[in-house]
Every structure is written in C-alpha cells, then in structure tokens.
C-alpha cells in the first residue's frame, strides 16, 4: 500500500481540543446529551474556549447544541450527532491504520 492510499485525518477532529470534546462525547450513549457546564468541568476548558470549538463541530454537523429548560433554569445540552460519531470512528480507525499499516496480502 502506498503512502497516498493512507486515509486522511479529518481536519475538524484533528485538533487537540476538538478531539478531546469528541472523545468525551463519544462515551455517552447514542442520543444522550450532556449539559454544557458538566462537559466543561470534565474537559477543564474555559466556557469561551469550549464554545468556540463546539461551534466549529456544530458547523461540521458533528455535534448538536440544544437550548432547553430544566424546570425553570435554562440549560444547554450537547450531544454527538450520528455523523459526528461516524467521523470519530473513522478518525480512530485511520489512526490505527497509520500505526499498524494493513498487510500487503489481504
């Protein structure tokens, strides 16, 4: 297999901060979402920084950010979309392929 055939790494995920966000969200079960402050606490990022990266992921269609209410308090919920989950799986598969290139013989 030539170098050119190696999979490209998704540029949206291939940035430390966004990779961390997506990795963290991938732990949730499909269709489950987490509140923004909780995600921020887990990732130890500032609210502004996390917002910036979430917007980029949202633009790519990888995460969905919903504003809702828990009782009377407003809450922002974040979840990985199906597309985001697929992109994350492709990304990890690509990393593994880079580390252990597939054998010549199939």
């Amino acid at each position, binding site marked *: 297999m030539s170098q050119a055939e190696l999979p490209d790494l998704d540029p949206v995920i*291939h940035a430390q901060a966004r*990779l961390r966000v997506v990795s963290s969200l991938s732990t949730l079960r499909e269709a489950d979402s987490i509140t923004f402050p909780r995600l921020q*606490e887990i990732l130890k990022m500032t609210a502004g920084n996390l917002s910036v990266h979430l917007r980029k992921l949202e633009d790519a269609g990888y995460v969905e950010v919903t504003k809702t209410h828990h009782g009377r308090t407003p809450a922002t919920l974040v979840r990985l979309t199906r597309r985001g989950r697929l992109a994350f799986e492709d990304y990890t598969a690509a990393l593994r392929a880079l580390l252990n290139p597939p054998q010549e013989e199939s």
Partner: protein
Amino acid sequence: MAPTDDDLPPADPAESLRLIERERAETELSITPDPRGFLWPWGFAWVLGFGVYFLRYGPGDRVFVDLPDWLPLILLLALFLAAGIFTGWFGARISRSISGPSTRQGAMYGITWSVAYTGMAVVLSTTNGLLSDAHANMLWAGAMVAVTGVMHMAGGAIWNDRGLFALGIWTSVVNVVGIFAGFGWHALILAVLGGGGMLLAGTLQWLRLRRLASRGLR
C-alpha cells in the same frame, strides 16, 4: 510537555490515540454513578433490618432480644423506604447533567420499584390478623425480597449488567433457601447473605470501575 495551542493537532497518531483513551476514561469515570450509592443503602438496610428481625423472631420461637413484637416489621419497612428514597435521589442526580434515553430508562426503572413495592404491600396487608406473627413476618419479608431479586434481575437485563443480574439471582436463591430453612433462619440468612451480598457487590463494582478508569488514565 510544553503548553500547546489546543487548535494544533496532537504530535503523532500514537499521541492522538492516548488522548482519546484518556478522555474517554475520564468522562466514563465522571458520568458513571458510584455503584456503592445504589447498593450500600440497601445492604445496610438489610443487615440492620433483618438482623433485628432475627433477634426478635429467632428460630423455634426463640427471642434473643425482647423487643416489642411490632418493631421489626416497622423498622424493616422504614429502612426500605429510606433506602428507596436515597437511591431514588442518588439516581435522579445523574439526570441533572445527562439527559436522553438513558435517564428516561433510569426514571422508568425507579418508578417500577415503587409501584412493585406498593402493589405488594397493598396485597399483603389484606392478610393482617389472619396469620401468626411469625408467619406474617416471614410472608412480608419473603415477598419484599422476592420483588427485590426480580427487580435486580430486570435491571441487569435493561443495562446488560451481568453483575446486577447475578446479584438478583443470588438474592432470589437466598430468599428461597431461607424460606425452606424456616422462621428465624430466613431473617438471619437474608441479613448475612442478602445484605452482605449487596455490600460486597457494591464494593466489587466500585473497585472494577476504579480499575477500568486507572487503566485508561495511565
């Protein structure tokens, strides 16, 4: 490691994979509720509740400690209620940060517990005054434990959790063994093997969670 701009890619693929593993382990540990919070309250309730039962209604009508005859059942019901309220509150805390299908599932499971106990209590209360004290006590205790065992097994099925399912089977078997052993022994067996089993299960699950987390966080 020098501070890096977090918009830059990780240094190399191996570093990326390590980052993914660490972040997943960190999140898993942070969103998974402590299993002790669900099992220890019940474990303590059983050890204490059925322990007092045994002391008052021992094998062969033996009375080890001369407590009022109404006390053991009231205490047991109060301890079960307290454990139920605590675990309900503990479970509901999760839904403050996570929402979606899994919190709905958790809420439905919680409601099922209270409906099952209420239904059982209403049915059993119709036997009030018809049975001997010892018999009535064993009927109540046996039914409560049977419902608990089945609920643990159902929980195991819902979350594909072998540990919880095994605890349910253990509880159900211990209950039947205790019933066959007879009055008095039933309470002792439930206190030691049932309550002790829950305390042990909670501890084992907690240790497993910590081990899984430390493997990923290394």
